[in-house]
């Protein structure tokens, strides 16, 4: 069965510093997609970054980047130069025909 595990329920980071959120997944598929979603206090779910499993190059979107380790089934999110607006719940997700979410990591940014 496909599962997504986020082992850090809560994380905190100092403003302007870097933080890494962990995500592991379990699958027998070889072709799939991985995502990180941000849910700020407004609770709107916002796509942060996505990664195709067949691509070895790690995805990057401005201050957000991933470390995708396919053999280890690991997909961590790195946020550089953290800003107050980055404070949110972050969900890792895995997709083939079905979509699987992790349980989320609550990120606090300390001024």
């Amino acid at each position, binding site marked *: 069965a496909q599962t997504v595990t986020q082992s850090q329920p809560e994380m905190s980071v100092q403003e302007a510093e870097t933080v890494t959120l962990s995500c592991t997944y379990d699958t027998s598929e070889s072709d799939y997609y991985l995502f990180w979603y941000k849910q700020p206090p407004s609770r709107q779910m916002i796509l942060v970054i996505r990664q195709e499993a067949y691509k070895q190059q790690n995805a990057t979107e401005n201050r957000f980047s991933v470390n995708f380790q396919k053999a280890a089934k690991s997909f961590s999110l790195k946020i550089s130069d953290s800003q107050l607006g980055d404070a949110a719940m972050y969900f890792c997700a895995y997709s083939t025909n079905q979509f699987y979410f992790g349980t*989320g990591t609550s990120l606090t940014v300390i001024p």
Partner: protein
Amino acid sequence: SQTIHQWPATLVQPVGSPLSLECTVEGTSNPNLYWYRQAAGRGLQLLFYSVGIGQISSEVPQNLSASRPQDRQFILSSKKLLLSDSGFYLCALKLHPNYGYTFGSGTRLTVV
């Protein structure tokens, strides 16, 4: 690009009352549509999904039902709300697995 309109944003309903949450889609046709519930600001639970008009799949047996009367309309309903139905309800669409979900802005339901 596709957008999802979801309303109402907030709803307070008494126990035993009916429920109807509506989700409409613009900018695309024949999307896969989904209803999720999020309790206590934590994980997302898939409730229903639909691959086309009149086609509904239920993931969790419960007090809720869903319908898709039109290609771009997805409705979540209940005949009699329970306290346990309180939560944050999100509608989402997916065009292709690699695009991920596009979410609506959600409805915060409180059953009192």
